[in-house]
Each structure stands twice: as structure tokens, then as C-alpha cells.
């Protein structure tokens, strides 16, 4: 299992297009991936869960991946948000 804290640098936050890109990327990995914000944990592969997370620009979220490609997953997703 790999975890990483990431600060959202995208002005839009994790909404609309960036959210779609994030979820799309997450779905390319085999690992189970979750995103946590203020104690609320959601499935990174579900668009509705990511949209309801309400992650705004500048806030910090924790990405957790567990599975054979967990390292690449966290790396790729963190990169998308920076």
C-alpha cells in the first residue's frame, strides 16, 4: 500500500474536467485507489464520489493505492493534481 499527500494546484480544484481526467487516469490502473479529504474517503475510480468530495484548489488530499501497480498509480495521479 502506498499513500501520498497532495496539494491541489489546479485552479478548478477536483471538479468537472480535471475530475474526469483524474478518474479516467485512476481507472487505467489495477490497484484499488482511494482519495481522502478531511476524513472523508472515496473511491478514486468513481466519478460521482470524486465530484462529491468537493476538493477545491489549494486543499490537501491523501491518495492511497493498493495493488500491483500502486506505485505508478500514486505517481501518475499526484502528477495530474500538481
Amino acid at each position, binding site marked *: 500500500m502506498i499513500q501520498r499527500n497532495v496539494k491541489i494546484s489546479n485552479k478548478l480544484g477536483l471538479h*468537472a*474536467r480535471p475530475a*474526469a481526467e483524474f*478518474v*479516467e487516469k485512476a*481507472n487505467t490502473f489495477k490497484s484499488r485507489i482511494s482519495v481522502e479529504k478531511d476524513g472523508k474517503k472515496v473511491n478514486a*475510480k*468513481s*466519478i*460521482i*464520489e470524486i*465530484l*462529491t468530495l*468537493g476538493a477545491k484548489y489549494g486543499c490537501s488530499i491523501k491518495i492511497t493505492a493498493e495493488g500491483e501497480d500502486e506505485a505508478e498509480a500514486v505517481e501518475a495521479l499526484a502528477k495530474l493534481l500538481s
Partner: protein
Amino acid sequence: MVGILLVSHSSKIAQGTLELVEQMTKGKVRIDIAAGTADNRLGTDAGMIKQKIEKIHSGDGVLVLVDLGSAVMSTELAIEKLDESLRSTTLIADAPFVEGAVVAALEASFGKSLEEVKKLTEDVKKYSKLG
């Protein structure tokens, strides 16, 4: 890839929702609309719905989003009139129109199956808009 059909009484609602969705899916998904009557009144037309389902069906199925009441009846009637092969792979999502369309189109773009896309779309009802 699952196709998405937006069925609404209003072509303005359908067009607007389509625009919103395509902003996110950028042409990756086959999405179309069947809204209003042929003479541009508010309403739904089962004949038009059937034609559109046939147009966007790729073999992976079609998920239909509907707005109010008779959109469901018109869609059910349209599905009954489809060829056997298309009929069993065309489903209606019991979900709010706009939010459902967004989720359906995105999940379809991730290559998920018809049943998965339907379930995820219907899960929208569980989430609070106001967080």
C-alpha cells in the same frame, strides 16, 4: 463502449445537458439526444427515440437517461419496438437527468459495462448535492 441517449421533453434541456457532458467526455462517447416533438413542441416521440437508439448502439449497449414521466413511457415503447438483439442491451437509468448524464457518459468513457454504468448512474441518487 456503452452509448448514452438523453431523452427529454425539452430539446433545450437535452442540448444543454449534452453540451455540459461533452465538455468532459470530449467526443469519446457516443452520446445523442431525443427530445421534443418533430414540430418543436415540448414532449417525447418514441419513434425518434427508437431511431436514435439504433443509431448509437455499438453492441456494448445503450443507457437511456430520461427526465419526467412520459419520457419513461415513450422510451419503454421505443425499446419494445427494437430488434431482439438491441432490446436486451438497452436499459433506462432511474437517475436524475443532468447528474445521471454526466456520470453515465464518464463511466461509459472509462470502458465500463452497461450494467456497471447503469448501477453507477443510479447511485447518483445516494449522494447529497449539498455535501
